[in-house]
Each structure stands twice: as structure tokens, then as C-alpha cells.
């Protein structure tokens, strides 16, 4: 099983799907030159008709992708999370709503790949982690791969999906390496990770840690360290937030009786808030301790490294929260 960076896993997913289906194409700013990295070499293989550089017009080209998907194409749009504000109307009023509003007449198989740069001095305008608010909107599938394998497998599934999907690509992971099975090793000859199916990265009995995107690795590290201290942590990675695998989360909490949620988004109305509210309603009688959120501080992202590092969840914060639930 080859090891590769998350960035490369994404690149493989796009390339494989473009080879398989001529309806798939990629568009975004400077995708030919692969400024953000995930479209490396694609322009050479697929040419300018399928790897399309766009003007700086997010609302316009998001909408163009949605319109193209409505009449038979399968666009992949590359952008940063922070640029989605500019194209928000097309994402919400059109991508999310068209199908329902038109009584199911149309499928919109469009994927928005939204890179989340944070943690590296990108400051407030380039560090958004906005998936919680897309969860509120409805009509958009929201996926948050936390490993290289899932990055590839979920993105491939997204491209084949007939609903609009936003793939939030955690910038703290893009350069991280992980094992991704070679297609030849796989039964169907390819890696497709289903939506709505959580991954249990560590089994445990004392406390459930639900970990999202860049927090997955931190939660695994926290679990491994806590193991040494005799605390058995179960790490549940939902992998997709819309749809959300409630069952796996609730089953885990039913077993452990404790729940910590680690989420790189700002804490108010976060994915962590949503998951906490589900657990508080549906697993209440199993709970032996308060549900703890470990999410980002409710501030904008400061540029200074002296400040920024204190914003996000860390292994230490997760460990502290787990210990707190243990009383």
C-alpha cells in the first residue's frame, strides 16, 4: 500500500475520474498551473478543454458549473473556503435549492473542492472553516476527509454522486502522508469510500472522541497517549457531515458513556454543536458526563503565529477534555 500526501490522493481521485468519465472536468483559478497543488499534471493529460482556468469571478463560474451540471456535465470546481463567500448566492440559492424547488426535475452532479488553509499565517481572509454553515443550509453534501485514503475515496464518490457536494480539504493535512491502497490491491479495482459511514480509527470503552477533518489525526494521537495512561478512547471520524452517520456516533456513546467532539471550526454553531445536540437528545440516558466540545476559539484567525496557534484544537486540548469527562 503506497504512502502519499493527501494532495496527491486528491490528484489521483480527479485524474481517475476524468479518465473514466468524459463528462467530468475541472475548473478554477490557475488550475492549469496547479497553483494549489491538487491539479498537478492534469492539464498536460486532459488539455485546456477539461482543465479550465477561470476569471476571478467566483459567483459567475460557480454558477456556470452548476448550470453545466444541470444539463449533463459533471464539473469539479476548485476554490478556497474563503472565496466561497463571494460565490455564496450560487452555492445556496442555486446548487442547494434548485433540485427541491423544481420538484426533483434536475440533478446537479457538481463538486466544489474547498481548500481550508489555516494554521500557517494566512490570516482572517484565508483561513475559514465554514462547513458548519453549509450543514445548516441543506441540499449540499458536505464531506471532510481526515486521511489520505478517505481524501481519495470520498472525492471519487463525490464526483460520481448526483447531488452537489462540497469537499472541504483541510490544509493542515494536504502535505501529510498516509497509506492509500493501490487500485490493484482493491476488490473492485478502485477506492470508493461511501458517504454517511463513519470510520472508527481507534476502538475504546471509556470515552468517544468524534473528530473532524484535521482533528482526526490529533484525536488518534490523543487516544494513543491516553491509552498509556489507562484511558480507553474510541475515535470516531464521521468523514461526511451531510449525510452524518448518527448511528455510529450514538452506538459509540452508548458504549463509552462519554463524548468529546473535536472540530477545527469556530465553536459556536459548529459541527461539534450539532453532534453534541444529537447526542444530548438521543444518547442522553447513556451519558455519564457532560458533552465536551473542543473547537476553535470564537475569534477570527489572527495572522501572528504567537496568537494563531492558540486558536485551534490540539492533541493536548483533546486529552484535557477527555480527562475532564472522566471526572
Amino acid at each position, binding site marked *: 500500500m503506497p504512502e502519499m500526501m493527501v494532495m496527491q490522493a486528491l490528484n489521483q481521485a480527479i485524474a481517475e475520474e476524468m479518465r473514466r468519465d468524459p463528462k467530468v472536468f475541472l475548473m478554477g483559478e490557475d488550475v492549469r498551473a496547479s497553483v494549489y497543488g491538487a491539479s498537478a499534471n492534469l492539464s498536460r493529460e486532459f488539455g485546456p478543454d477539461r482543465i479550465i482556468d477561470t476569471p476571478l469571478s467566483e459567483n*459567475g463560474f460557480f454558477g456556470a458549473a*452548476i*448550470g453545466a451540471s*444541470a444539463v*449533463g456535465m459533471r464539473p469539479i470546481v476548485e476554490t478556497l473556503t474563503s472565496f466561497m463567500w463571494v460565490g455564496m448566492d*450560487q452555492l445556496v440559492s442555486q446548487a442547494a435549492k434548485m433540485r427541491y424547488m*423544481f420538484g426533483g*426535475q434536475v440533478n446537479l452532479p457538481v463538486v466544489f473542492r474547498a481548500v481550508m488553509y489555516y494554521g500557517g499565517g494566512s490570516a482572517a481572509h484565508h483561513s475559514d472553516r465554514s462547513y458548519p454553515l453549509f450543514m445548516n443550509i441543506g441540499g449540499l453534501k458536505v464531506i471532510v476527509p481526515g486521511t489520505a485514503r478517505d481524501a481519495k475515496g470520498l472525492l471519487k464518490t463525490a464526483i460520481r454522486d448526483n447531488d452537489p457536494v462540497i469537499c472541504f480539504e483541510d490544509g493542515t493535512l494536504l502535505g501529510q502522508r498516509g497509506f492509500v491502497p493501490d487500485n490493484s490491491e482493491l476488490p473492485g479495482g478502485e477506492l470508493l469510500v461511501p458517504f454517511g459511514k463513519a470510520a472508527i480509527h481507534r476502538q475504546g470503552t471509556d470515552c468517544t472522541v468524534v473528530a473532524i477533518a484535521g482533528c482526526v489525526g490529533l484525536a488518534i494521537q490523543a487516544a494513543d497517549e491516553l491509552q498509556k495512561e489507562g484511558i480507553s478512547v474510541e475515535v470516531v471520524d464521521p468523514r461526511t457531515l451531510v449525510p452524518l452517520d448518527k448511528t455510529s456516533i450514538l452506538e459509540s456513546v452508548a458504549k463509552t458513556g462519554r463524548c468529546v467532539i473535536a472540530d477545527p471550526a469556530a465553536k459556536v454553531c459548529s459541527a461539534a454543536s450539532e453532534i453534541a445536540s444529537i447526542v444530548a437528545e438521543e444518547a442522553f440516558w447513556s451519558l455519564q458526563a457532560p458533552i465536551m466540545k473542543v473547537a476553535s476559539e470564537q475569534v477570527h484567525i489572527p495572522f501572528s503565529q504567537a496568537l494563531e496557534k492558540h486558536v485551534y484544537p490540539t492533541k493536548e486540548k483533546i486529552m484535557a477534555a477527555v480527562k475532564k469527562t472522566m471526572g
Partner: protein
Amino acid sequence: MNIPKDKLMLMLERMWLIRNFELKVIEAHKTGEFAGGAHPYIGEEAVAVGACIAMRDTDYIAGNHRSHGHPIAKGASLNKAMAEIFGRRDGYCKGKGGSMHLADFSVGILGESGIVGSSVPIATGAALASKLQKKDFVSAVFFGDGASNQGACHESMNLASVWKLPVIFICENNQYAVTTSYKSTVAVEHVSDRASAYNMPGVLVDGQDCIAMYEAMTEAVRRARAGEGPTLLEGLTYRFEEHSLGLGKIRRSEYRTEDEINSWRKRDPIVIHEDRLLKSEIASQAEVQHVRDHTEKLSMEALEFARKSPWPEVSELFEDMWADKTMPIP
């Protein structure tokens, strides 16, 4: 241009269909037969009809909140349209869309949109698909003078121009956005003057004359199909009614004068076309009368159809959110 009689008659028929349909909608709104508002297209029929008759069934259109005229001009079913406005199961969107969201994907009607300017990128995207698929489908989008100030229009026109997309931007300049004159919001004299900012032809057309619209559109469609890129058409027109049903409280005279309204009403697009057909002896009085009666009948039938159509079941609330039938609704 030599336009065959069947096209000329079709234009008359479609304009009458819109007119009579809208009159029924107004009637039904008055008696509270449906919820929400609706934005009548009366007075502007020639714009959509002239444009749509110049297109093929396989071509695409998208529209806006003033939403009944475009699909009917493109050949939508009156029954399904009215049932939709009534929120009924047999409506185009099974009652989920209502007046502002008529759509018929089976004949290229990609949908009307309530957010002003929001469907302009969508139509542009359909044109992009057509180009990528190497098909010769063209795409047209109807939007208002008010909408022309939205960034979405700018971005789409620029995109369409640099990519030479087969899309026609049709500004229905009825001179007002609700109560606001375009003269106070559009910095140039005519919206079509903006075409030069996108290196595309901009054509100011008499929006009360369906033949003028048809001819301008025919050239725009030719250009688009030939791969020569987009066109901006501006149909100068007027809405004879208030902005929307239910907004009667805004006395029209506060933002437009009775004189202005009356002088435009004299330029009724249907009267203009009928007179021309009669005068040139292309159609007889009987033929014209037949169109009137027939479209009135169809509109009445649509109203009856809508009234009789069942309401959607509660369970349908949770349908159509997702193409993926396995998706759980939380």
C-alpha cells in the same frame, strides 16, 4: 426578414396565451385561491415570445421572478404552470416551487429564479456545457433592468465573452425595479450600452414588437450557434400592472405617472402584432379571433385543472431534496 405565417401566428398565440394566463392568475389571486405573490408579465409578452420563437426546443432558457411569460413563450404547459402556482401536485414542481420557480427541464426550461440576477450564471453554464459537449444548443436568459446591476450579470457576460459561449443575455428593460426607475440605478442610457464592456454586440430592441425581438434574437442565435459568442439584447418594454400581485398598496402614481402608464398601454404588444397581421392581410379577423378564443379557453382550462389538482401529501415534504434516495433527512 421573411417570417413564415405559422411563426407569425405562433407568436400571436403565445402572446395571447401569456396574456390570458396572467389574467386568470390575477383573478385567482384576488379571490385568494393561492398563497404568496406573483409578478405579471402583461405588457412585456413580445420580449419572451419574440426571443423564444427564434429558438429550438432543445435550446435552453432561464428566467427570473417575473416568471410566467418565459416558460409559456418557450412552450410550457399552461396546466402544469397554473397547478404549480396553486401549489398542487400536478404542478411543474409538484407544488414545491410556486409562481417564481416554474421549470420544465424536458423542454430546456431551466427554471425561473426568485433571487434577482441569480439565474444568469446558470444559463451561462448551460451554454458552457453545450460548448464542451460540442452540441449546438444555445442558451438564453431573461433578466430585468434592475438585475443588470448585479455582479452576477457582469461576471457572466464577461465569462461568456472570453469563452465565446452560445448564450444570449436578454434584458427586459421595463424601466423599473419595483418602484425604482432604471434611470436612477443604471449609469448608462441603455443597458445594452454595456455590451461594449464585454466585447459583444449590444442591441436595443423595441420590446413591444415581437418581430423586432424575433429578428434580433435570430441573429443572436445564429452568432451563438456559429460559435461567435454571446449577445446582449435589450428589449425596451413596460409592465402594465403593478410589480407584483399584493403590492397594490404602493400607488403607482408615486413612482410612475398615469400619463406614462397610459402612453405605454397604447403600445400593447398584442395589439401591435394583431394590427400588423390584419393590415398586411396575413391573418383574417376570424383567425385572430380564433387565437383569442382558443387561448382564453386554454387558460380557463388551466385554471380548472389547477383547482382540481390534488394537494401534495405531507410525506412529499421530504422528497426531492436529494437525488440520492438513501439520504437520511435529519
